[in-house]
């Protein structure tokens, strides 16, 4: 699939090797129907690379292959690759591979005149035709130079051989020893110019580093860097970890750190697929916070891979249990996997390679590396930086969230020590000891968090049986108050609050009293008024009764006098009585 796509783009047909990573940096594989030269010093894996190319070609791409070995016998070869799971005898029995040992015994090559290597051609042709081979390996053809004196003939015959292989249309791999001043001892690169791959194996500070470089690839774009590779139980793998472009998809999903208040500080938590750096001096609680990340991931049902370069799995489980984080069930459910190795066990490339493999196999959503600072001990700072860059890129392209723990040494600017990796990190949480008032307390702040309006506060946190707990913030004149100073401040604030409460209560009481007094007055006045009202009412009633009586009397009188009704009597008239 990918192969076809690439060939359309580059215009060159490619034979996929099936070797992890190699197809990516060659843009699809080796040039199809053309010879490829693999050179390198002794023991760097040339034969293995060639053999894997052949075996994978058979198993994965259905292309039978011929292996001509000039050094080892077929039996030796079969034994050597059996540990990698290649069963050459079985493949040979099925007619998928033809292995032939070409014995070059100098004693039998006494030259008595003109000759050519037609015998080799005939044998190759027979082998290719007998199984319909599409791939051919010649390992190591330079041996011919050792067996034959007439170098001119060997050279012209090799030239003819490579042309012949091209004409035959087989994809071939030729291995050669690395020369002191040139790629190969005999300058074979002159003849095989389509694709040249250089393998290198060097030892730095007692750790071995294997690297692969594509020196030349005619007619095709290819990665030009030195790529680390490793040979392990599953064969050859090359690590094209430096992604060629920054085209990884950015997720908008936020994931929890496992600590609610930290999530709040980060505006809901870091984005999925970003990298988080937890850095701090010794004992600031880095691993504990990292364990929270891991636990939260498992609780979401997402797999987490935890690299521990300082502690063993059981040690971490025990230590985390002491702060109330029981990780053991997650380990049992296979959501959490630990890898505990000493960083100095192998070189950085090997670390990277094994991590690459683990991650590909396990497909975790979260990877914790605790601590990355130890990698510097396995390589130089620059190498460690390159390695982290590759790791970060790799994880980003997979949308895997990464949590890196970094130990910073005391003294010096904490931020400065991490300068070299800060650009790779999306969210940087800095843990620090806050020394104040004769005690040390743990503080945390978010140094940066890309794409997040994060909190700028320095927060104190404690590690207790409930895990990491954030405390409220008290900012005093000398910065954040922590520990007992925070407690004192809390007590002070409590006292002030209490006093305020009391004052309020007393004011309230005073008010009540005032209201009561007022109400008493009101009721007294009302009582007085009511009394007066009653008296006046009575008086009015009496007067009214008296007035009525007068009128009645007058009326009676008039009646008795038979006076006609002259209307109302003058007002004063009634008063006379």
């Amino acid at each position, binding site marked *: 699939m990918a192969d076809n796509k690439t060939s359309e783009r580059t215009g060159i047909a490619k034979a996929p090797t099936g070797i992890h990573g190699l197809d990516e940096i060659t843009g699809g594989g080796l040039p199809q129907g053309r010879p490829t030269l693999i050179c390198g010093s002794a023991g760097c894996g040339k034969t293995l690379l060639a053999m894997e190319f052949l075996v994978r070609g058979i198993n994965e791409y259905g292309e039978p292959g011929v292996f001509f070995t000039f050094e080892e016998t077929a039996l030796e070869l079969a034994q050597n690759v059996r540990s990698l799971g290649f069963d050459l005898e079985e493949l040979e029995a099925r007619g998928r591979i033809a292995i032939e040992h*070409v014995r070059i015994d100098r004693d039998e090559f*006494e030259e*008595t005149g003109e*000759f*050519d290597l037609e015998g080799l051609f005939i044998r190759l*042709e*027979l082998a290719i035709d007998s199984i319909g081979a599409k791939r051919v390996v010649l390992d190591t053809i330079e041996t011919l130079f050792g067996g034959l004196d007439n170098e001119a003939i060997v050279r012209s015959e090799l030239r003819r051989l490579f042309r012949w292989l091209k004409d035959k249309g087989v994809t071939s791999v030729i291995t050669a020893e690395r020369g002191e001043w040139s790629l190969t001892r005999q300058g074979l690169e002159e003849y095989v110019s389509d694709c040249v791959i250089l393998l290198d194996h060097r030892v730095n500070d007692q750790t071995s580093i294997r690297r692969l470089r594509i020196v030349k690839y005619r007619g095709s774009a290819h990665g030009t860097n030195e790529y680390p590779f490793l040979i392990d139980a599953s064969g050859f793998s090359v690590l094209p970890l430096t992604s060629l472009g920054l085209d990884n998809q950015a997720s908008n999903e936020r994931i929890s750190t496992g600590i609610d208040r930290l999530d709040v500080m980060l505006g809901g938590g870091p984005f999925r697929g970003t990298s988080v750096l937890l850095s701090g001096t010794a004992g600031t609680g880095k691993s504990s916070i990292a364990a929270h990340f891991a636990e939260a991931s498992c609780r979401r049902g997402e797999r987490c891979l935890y690299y521990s370069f300082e502690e063993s799995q059981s040690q971490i489980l025990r230590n985390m249990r002491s702060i109330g984080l029981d990780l053991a069930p997650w380990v049992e459910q296979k959501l959490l996997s630990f890898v505990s190795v000493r960083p100095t066990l192998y070189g950085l490339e090997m670390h990277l390679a094994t991590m690459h493999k683990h991650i590909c196999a396990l497909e975790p959503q979260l990877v914790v590396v605790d601590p990355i600072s130890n990698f510097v001990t396995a390589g130089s700072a620059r190498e460690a930086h390159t390695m982290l860059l590759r790791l970060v890129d790799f994880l980003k392209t997979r949308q895997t969230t990464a949590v890196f723990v970094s130990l910073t040494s005391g003294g010096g600017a904490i931020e400065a020590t991490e300068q070299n990796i800060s650009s790779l990190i999306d969210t940087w949480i800095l843990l620090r000891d806050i020394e104040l008032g004769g005690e040390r307390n743990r503080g945390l702040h978010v140094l940066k968090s890309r794409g997040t309006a994060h909190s700028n506060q320095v927060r104190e946190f404690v590690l207790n049986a409930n895990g990491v707990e954030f405390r409220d913030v008290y900012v005093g004149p000398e910065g954040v108050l922590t520990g007992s100073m925070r407690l004192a401040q809390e007590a002070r604030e409590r006292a002030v609050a209490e006093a305020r409460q009391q004052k309020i209560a007393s004011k309230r009481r005073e008010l009540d009293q005032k209201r009561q007094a007022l109400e008493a007055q009101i009721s007294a006045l009302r009582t007085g008024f009511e009394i007066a009202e009653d008296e006046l009412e009575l008086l009015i009633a009496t007067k009214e009764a008296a007035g009525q009586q007068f009128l009645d009397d007058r009326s009676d009188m008039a009646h008795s006098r038979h006076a006609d009704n002259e209307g109302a009597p003058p007002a004063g008239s009634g008063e006379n009585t």
Partner: protein
Amino acid sequence: MSSDHDVPAGPVAPSTHETWEFRLYVAGQRPKSLKAVENLTRMCEEYLPGRYKIEVIDLLKDPRLAKEDEIVAIPTLVRKLPDPMRRVIGDLSNVEKALVRLELRLTKT
């Protein structure tokens, strides 16, 4: 390389009166092959008159033998008898070298 021509080999003496067997591997009728046959025959006539047998094998006709007999260079001459087996490559135009390697000179007394 080989310097054994200085020391007369033990089994040479009896070999003087037995038949020598040669096998010459060629590929088709190419000049080098023809030249090799010619040179070999001349040498044998001179040193082993009537006591030699030459078998010419054309690998183009029977390519399987190339693998079986481990042939790389063409032409390759194998002395099958007398023991031990000896091999030389090339068209035998370097007669001196061929004689020494095949121990033919010792037969002429």
